[in-house]
Structure formats: C-alpha cells, structure tokens
C-alpha cells in the first residue's frame, strides 16, 4: 500500500535548479533506497518531502502522504505531521542532539511536544524506546558527548520513532560510523521496517543501499534516473548506474606471489632497496589514553602496506609518527635505513624528501590563499633552492602527470572538485620524488566513481615511479584493491598482519573477522 508518493518535485534556489521533477513512491513496510553521488540532490529530496526547505527555495510539485495532499497544508499542519507521522534522522548524530540535555530528557521532550501526558509517563515511554533501539543498558542521565557515535545514532532513531511515525527518512544515517556499528544500525532500521514503517534510506554507498533496500532509486543532477523493482543491483540498467556500480565494485588487486621490488639492483645495496620503512616499538600517549602502543612495522620498497581499523584505534597517530609530525614517546622510525625520529635540520629535510603524504580532506589540505602552482611546489623547500621558473615548470609537469592540465597552475584550490583536489595533493607529494607516500584516508571523502579514478591513478604512479604506499583506511574494499599487505589495528596495537589475500580469505583473529563481516558486500547479482 502506498504510504507516500511524490510527483514532479521541483526545487530551485536563486534560479539554480536543484531538483528537476522528482517522482517517487514509498510503501508501508518497505525501504526505498535513494542513492547518488554528492550534489545529486538526495538530501534536497528528503527536505522537499518534509517541506523543510531553505527560505529562498522555490518549490513546486505534489506530495501525497497517507492519501492526503500536502500541497495546501499550512506550516502548523506540517509541524504536526513532522515528528508524529514522518520523522527524519541525519548523518551526524552529535550535531543533531542538544549537548546540554540528557538523552532521556531529549526523548521525553520529543514525546511531549506532540502528545499530552505527564513527565513520568514520557520518561517511562522513553525507557521502552531505549530498549527498542538496543540501548536498554544505558543510563538515561547520560549526556550526548558521553556516548559513542553508534549510541548517539540510536538515540536519534529512538527520538525519531518515539511517536510511531509511519515514515522515516534516514539521510546517510550510518556513513559517519565504523563498519561494525554501521551494520548494527542497519539491522535496527530493518527491524523497524519489519514492524510496518516505511523507510526512505539515503546514501552514497551502493553496497549499503543494496543491503537494506527493497527498491533502489538512482539520482543524478536533481533527477531520478531509474528505480528498480527489486533489491538486486542487477536490475540497474541506466549507463550511469552501471558505471557507479562498476566503480563501487572494486576489483581485488592482482598480486604477484612475492612483493615486487623494482630496480632492485639500483642504489647502494640490497638493504637500502629492501626496507623503505622500519618502525620499531612506536608508542604515543595522550594523557591517560595510549593511542599507539608498541607498534613495529616494516615495508619493502615498492610495497603497499594498508593499515585498517575503526576510528580512534590510533591509525592516524601512527601515520603522523611515521611522517615525524608527531614525536613518539618511545620507539623510532627509520626511512631507507636513516633515522627519522631524531633527525634535525638538513638531515631531517633529506629524509623527508623520501616520505611525503596525502591527507583525507580534499577541502582542508590547501591554503585557500595560495595558487595551485605554489601549493604543488611547496615541498621543493626540502631540496636545493631553485628559481621560480623551475618551480612553476615542475608544478605544471606534475599537474599533467596526475591528469590535470598545466594551465590549472594559476588557479586556486577552491576552483576544483574533490577528486581534482586529491590529484593536486598527490602532485604535491610527488614533486620531491619520494619513495614512500603516506595516504591517510586519501580516498575516503570521494564519490565512488572519483574514488575509482584516484585509485587507478595511484596504481599507475606506483608502477611507473616504483612508489611505496602506506595506506591508512577504514574501508576494507579499497584496501583489498590496492594493498600488498594489510595490518589490522585495534586500540593502539597491531592485532594481525599479513598478505592481503590471507587477511581477507583466511583471517586468523576474531577482530579481523568481525571487521570483514561488517563490511557490506556488493552483490552484483546475475548481471554481467
């Protein structure tokens, strides 16, 4: 039975069309997955259905909810409808909760806004809800900052379903969560749908959408390209959907039996060529928290080592110690046999030329006041001084090497898209011809098609330049595509380390298996 149907929704802000004729239908007890890349209009669709559009937005179209036409509903009716009959949860649970109110207080308030009743009744109902969302053991007097990300998302779900809405809109509800937590939240949402609620599930992640949805709608540039009639991704026919699917289904890397060591004969000897990175007993504490606890790692030249683990396990701290950005409490890092931890001055600069980095945030990695040529040439500071002309020429050469154009050199970083910015960041890392690049979640913030392109670029550069990558990621699918070896990190320690196929096919540790099981697998179905 149809719960909500939208016909020809159009939204424009300042003359710019954001939604261009969206029509969709959600039935009771059904999940409609809405998938698309960033900027495709997914969130705007959710806001349009809830009529929570920005003031300047111009809206047209028809929304029928439980047989009622919402086109002529006034703000008061809409307010009553929201929360009581249709509810919404968002990606970032911390900003959606009031930081100075206990979680039970916030649930009780959500109930009392729409329904008369005593405080005690609302509190009792709140407790039941907590149990429903799997927070039964939680002390109700906790504040949002005392909860984990997953618990916060559960609190938000409890608030959203408090009044038994018939429709829940979930906008990237699990994107900011770790794989294991994400799996729990998806299971919770599925159980709510099983009780008869309709769910509009918005995500950029095809694997997650395929796992939870009954039908899938693909969005691009404010339009719905197609809607499948089943949960199988094989039903996707549109070329764009197929391209997105292909980009999401990352192929495991074809690895040689042994790690490739290019140009083994070059250099001053076998030892120099063999170990580009050697970290021994790295330890770092912040106050009482031991972020990294006696980690030792080594990497051969030309090898890609992936470091995986959930957020807060110490991955980034370890990466920063390897980059000598963070001084370890104990332990040492050697790059190509040379000490990096204690190195100072000219010596440190020499070692630094061999190890560069690409960071996660394609928007925060560049000084907004510098032109691309200056950004890319910045590490030349590590080499002997060269003239401005040489710097510019080098920057242009590298722009072409990473698939951009030489004339982009005079632009500013904000003129580029996320994927292009990551290419600039890679060019910056390459300019001093390093042997090792630390990639800290370097593709995590990118859309799937862009991510696939950047991974291809990284693979090509590795082949042509003989690079080694220290690849920090929480995304196991990506890791499988690029790594030779994988190290699994938990609570500051490496719990398992091995060749990529061994880790994925024959994990030895329970924690590794948990991580692997929690990763949604992309089931391409019977399609080619």
């Amino acid at each position, binding site marked *: 039975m149809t719960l909500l149907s939208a016909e020809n929704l159009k939204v424009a802000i300042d003359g710019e069309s954001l939604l261009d004729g969206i029509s969709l239908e959600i039935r009771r007890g059904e999940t409609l997955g809405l998938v698309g890349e960033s900027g495709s209009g997914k969130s705007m669709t959710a806001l349009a259905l809830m009529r929570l559009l920005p003031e300047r937005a111009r809206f047209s179209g028809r929304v029928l909810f439980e047989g009622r036409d919402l086109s002529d509903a006034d703000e008061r009716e809409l307010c009553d409808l929201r929360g009581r009959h249709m509810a919404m949860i968002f990606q970032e649970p911390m900003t959606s909760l009031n930081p100075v109110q206990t979680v039970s207080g916030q649930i009780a308030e959500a109930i009392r806004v729409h329904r008369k009743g005593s405080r005690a009744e609302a509190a009792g109902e709140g407790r039941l809800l907590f149990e429903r969302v799997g927070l039964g053991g939680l002390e109700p007097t906790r504040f949002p900052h005392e909860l984990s990300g997953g618990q916060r998302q559960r609190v938000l779900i409890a608030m959203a379903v408090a009044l038994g809405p018939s429709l829940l809109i979930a906008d990237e509800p699990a994107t900011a969560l770790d794989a294991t937590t994400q799996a729990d939240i998806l299971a919770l949402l599925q159980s709510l749908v099983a009780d008869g609620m309709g769910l509009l599930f918005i995500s950029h992640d095809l694997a997650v959408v395929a796992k939870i949805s009954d039908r899938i709608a693909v969005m691009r540039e404010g339009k719905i390209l197609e809607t499948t009639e089943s949960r199988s991704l094989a039903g996707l026919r549109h070329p764009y959907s197929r391209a997105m699917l292909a980009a999401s289904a990352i192929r495991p890397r074809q690895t040689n039996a042994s790690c490739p060591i290019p140009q083994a004969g070059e250099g001053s000897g076998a030892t120099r060529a063999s170990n580009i990175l050697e970290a021994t007993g790295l330890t770092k504490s912040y106050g009482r928290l031991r972020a990294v606890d006696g980690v030792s790692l080594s990497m051969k030249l030309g090898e890609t080592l992936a470091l995986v683990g959930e957020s807060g396990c110490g991955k980034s701290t370890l990466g*920063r110690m390897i*980059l000598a*950005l963070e001084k370890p409490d104990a332990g040492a890092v050697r790059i190509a046999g040379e000490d990096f931890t204690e190195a100072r001055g000219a010596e*440190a*600069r020499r070692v*630094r*030329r061999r190890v*560069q*980095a690409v*960071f*996660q*945030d394609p928007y*925060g*990695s*560049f*000084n*907004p*006041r510098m032109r691309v040529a200056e950004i890319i040439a*910045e*590490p030349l*500071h*590590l080499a002997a001084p060269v003239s401005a002309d040489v710097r510019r020429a080098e920057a242009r050469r590298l722009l072409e090497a990473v698939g951009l154009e030489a004339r982009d050199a005079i632009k500013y970083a904000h003129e580029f898209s996320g994927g292009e910015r990551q290419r600039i*960041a890679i060019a*910056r*890392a390459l300019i001093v011809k390093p042997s090792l690049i630390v990639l800290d979640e370097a593709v995590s913030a990118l859309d799937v098609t862009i991510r696939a392109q950047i991974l291809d670029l990284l693979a090509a550069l590795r082949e042509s330049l003989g690079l080694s990558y220290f690849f920090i990621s929480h995304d196991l699918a990506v890791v499988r595509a690029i790594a030779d070896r994988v190290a699994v990190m938990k609570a500051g320690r490496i719990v398992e380390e091995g060749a990529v196929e061994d880790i994925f096919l024959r994990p030895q540790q329970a924690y590794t298996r948990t991580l692997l099981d929690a990763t949604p697998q992309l089931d391409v179905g019977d399609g080619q």
Partner: protein
Amino acid sequence: MRRAPANLVAGAAITALFVGMAALSLVWTPYDPTAFNVPERLRPPSFAHWFGTDHFGRDVFSMVMAGARTSIAVAVLAAGLGLAVGAPLGLLSASAGRLLDEAIMRANDVVFAFPALLLAILLTAVLGPGQLNAVLAIGLFNVPVFARLARGSAKALWAREFVLAARVAGKGPLRISAEHIYPNIADTLIVQGTVQFALGVLAEAGLSYVGLGAPPPTPSWGRMLAESQTLAGVAPWLAIFPGLAIALCVLGLNLFGDGLRDRLDPKLARAR
C-alpha cells in the same frame, strides 16, 4: 557578491569624514585653532563660528578639526603598535612549545588584569604627558588583545591539514606562521584593528581629559571637554561638539569594523 552591507558604507563614510577633516586641518582650518580672540569669546554657534567660540575666543570648529588629527594619530599609532607587537607574539605563542606559549600568555594576562585606561593613566603619569607617551600607553594595552586573538585564530589553523602538508614539506614553525597562518588570520586582525582604533580614540580622549594627553596648545577633544566643564551652563556648545565628535568617530569606526567583518567573513554574512 551581494549588496554591500549598509553598515560598511555608513562606517566607511563617517571614518573618511573624520580622516579627511584631520588631513584638511594640516593645511587649512577656518580660524587658527590656537589663536586667542578675547572679544569674540563664548559666542554661540553662528555663520561666522559654526560651533561657536570658547572662553579664549578660539573657534570651536577649527579646534574639533585639529583635535581629530591628534585623536586619529594617537589611536592609529597605538593600534599599529599593538598589532605590530601583539600579532607576532600570538603567532609565536601558537607555534611554540608549551613552556613559551604559557609564558607569553600569562604575561598577557598580567597586562589584561589592569583596567586598560587606568594603566594608561599610570604609565603617562610616570612617563610624563605627551602624544608619544599616550601612544605607548594605549599601544601597550592593545598588545595582549592582538596577541590573544592571533594565538586563538592561529591555533585553530595549526590543526588544519594544509598546515600538516606544509610540515610534511619540511617547513619550520616560523615559516609556516609567516606563509600559511598569518595570511589566513590577517582579515581577523584587521577587523580587530578597527575596534582597537575606536577604543584608542576613546582612550586618547580620556587621557587628555585628565591632562595626560597632548599638552596645550595642541587641540584635543578630551581637553576641550575638560575645559568646557565649568562653562557647561553658560556655553553648552563647548561640550556638545567635541563630545559629538568623539561619539560619531567611534560609532563610525565600529560600523566600519562590523561591515568589514561581514564582508571578509562570507560565512557570517550568510548566517545573518
């Protein structure tokens, strides 16, 4: 870019008016602001004397014009002094280790702990009255304002990835402060500069009111107010015009600073 904010336009106009008046007074005033003309004393505002004359027969309009020069010169120099000393201190504090950071910021707190104007009065009382000493005294209490602001803004930038990238490029804290941090906090410092400029105008008026500003016969708004006190009943214009000048000048600078902040920080402008 959307329409220019009204406060920016109004603030800039008022500020320009006072700066223009001060500049003009260097070459021309209707009368000599220091010349006594006893027969013409205590005249109310008229066509001949727009703002009237004081008890020595000096033209009040000419004195307000020349007084703008004193106020603006002292306030600008004091704000500049605070910026020139405070901003590098703040940048250093943000990039230095814990010990130096603590030392700089606690020294800041000591200066902050004294009421600014009281401190300035104390200082000029010790150093002796005069424009230069007024600049030093007002500038001194501007230093911690800029230092703290620069440190706070810089600290936030130090956590950003482009600073990490600069560190990976092997740049030291001083170079990063100069090349990456400073250009990104300059806007904030300029806006604060207009606020300190306005406060400086007030402080200069306060100092000369108690006789610690520019010595006579240099015209000054604060001293004009002080001298008008006993004559307020007979010649209210003696208090009204310099008072109005101070208020309007400070208002203009504050509007200008506000508008500048809206213009330079697009996020804030959109939120309004």
